[in-house]
């Protein structure tokens, strides 16, 4: 090879070497197999990837429960046929260093609530007949900010697995997602709650307002962290000490502030915060 080809190879290795080194390619097949049917689901998050290549199959001898593949545009496609494949799919995502996780939606979960759009899709999915289906989620790791996780609600309805469009959350991905629908996300400062005039600013503005209110607050915490329905449904100042506020459907309590609910973002407080 000449100098041009050698230099080009070095550049290719520099730019794509890491991706290629991590890539696991399927073994060569002797003949072309029939294309598997990917039936589009009714869920919002279902998307068909154009140039996906299967990188990982969960088992060679049985139908694959999942597949994680990298697309030519740098995005990844996760295919899931069985809920049992969630763990392995997440393990593969972890191995690839992608901050995204499939999280099963269960009625018994109390950790995190289901986003309203996912709840609607889940309801819609109940109305369709059960069909053999591969649920497909497409995600772009470059769009996941550092320190955040893309959580992809995953559930089984009418005999078929569904995945929803993921949403970002700080901290760590939850172990499960509750079927309880999260409340509308509005920021309420303590003062606004006292005045029964809920603020509608951005979470950052709400956080700032709440921090100011908290700093100026001289009242003690009654132990009720403010995320119960009584906070807004009962307009008495005594019941609204609330050094807490609702941001992005989660209840955040400032670090170090005494609270007996421990609801630091994953308390699954939907339906009880009463801020809708």
């Amino acid at each position, binding site marked *: *090879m*000449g*100098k*041009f*080809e*050698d*230099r*080009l*190879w*070095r*550049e*290719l*290795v520099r*730019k*794509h*070497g890491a*991706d*290629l*080194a*991590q*890539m*696991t*390619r*399927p073994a*060569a*097949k*002797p*003949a*072309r197999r029939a294309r598997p049917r990917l039936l589009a689901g009714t869920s919002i998050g279902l998307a068909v990837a154009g*140039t*996906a*290549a299967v*990188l990982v199959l969960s088992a060679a001898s049985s139908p694959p429960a999942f597949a994680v*593949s*990298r*697309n*030519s*545009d*740098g995005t990844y496609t996760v295919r899931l046929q069985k809920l049992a494949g969630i763990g392995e799919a997440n393990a593969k995502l972890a191995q690839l260093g992608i901050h995204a996780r499939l999280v099963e939606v269960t009625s018994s979960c109390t950790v995190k609530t289901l986003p309203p759009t996912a709840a609607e899709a889940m309801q819609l999915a109940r109305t369709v007949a059960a069909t053999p289906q591969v649920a497909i989620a497409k995600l772009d790791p470059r769009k996941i900010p550092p320190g955040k996780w893309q959580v992809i609600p995953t559930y089984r309805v009418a005999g078929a697995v569904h995945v929803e469009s993921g949403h970002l959350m700080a901290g760590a991905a939850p172990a499960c997602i509750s079927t309880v629908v999260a409340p509308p996300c509005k920021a309420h400062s303590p003062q606004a709650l006292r005045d029964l005039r809920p603020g509608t600013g951005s979470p950052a503005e709400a956080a700032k307002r709440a921090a100011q209110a908290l700093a100026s607050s001289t009242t003690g915490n009654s132990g009720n962290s403010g995320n119960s329905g009584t906070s807004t449904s009962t307009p008495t100042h005594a019941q609204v000490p609330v050094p807490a506020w609702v941001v992005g459907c989660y209840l955040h309590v400032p670090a170090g502030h005494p609270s007996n609910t421990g609801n630091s973002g994953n308390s699954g407080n939907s339906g009880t915060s009463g801020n809708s």
Partner: protein
Amino acid sequence: MSTAAGAKVMMLGDSARARAAIPGHPSGSALAEFEQVYRGNVDVVTAYFARRCAEPQIVADLTSETFVRAAGAFGSFDPGRGSARAWVFGIAAHVFAGHCAQAANGRDAVARLAQRRPLDVDEIDELAGKIDAERAGRELIGRCSQLPELERAAVEFVDLAGLTPKEAATALGVSRVVLRKRLSRARARLRKEHQGDG
């Protein structure tokens, strides 16, 4: 006329050096596989573009773009559906088609896509030599200009680039039967034209 034969020779010393330069680069990894694809085809792809363009920088850009795309899409390459050469030539054909379309619109797509890297003097000399070596091929392509596109591509891929009819059919996205028919028809036309000229 073609440099295909030379391209099939693997330079194992270079390959080993390249692997050694990448920490944790096992011989069975996708990177090692891609390296084989690259080293086995870079010469013929360069020659393919050298027959199409007389400007070293454009040949370099198009070759770079082809392998950049190949590296990005290597996960989708299925050897069961065709050889690596057919796959790479399919990409090269798309790259060249895109280049022509963009050039027709007055835009330099390659410079945008491949983030053009200026060549040094040695590389320009090297590519100029390849362009010169493909002069006869360029003349044949010129004679094929009156042929339908698929026939022209069939002649180029099989008779100039050295692909097998099966590989050419895969690269062009047609069946082998169609490829053979078009190739036969194109050769007959060229022969007839040549006899007419004589």
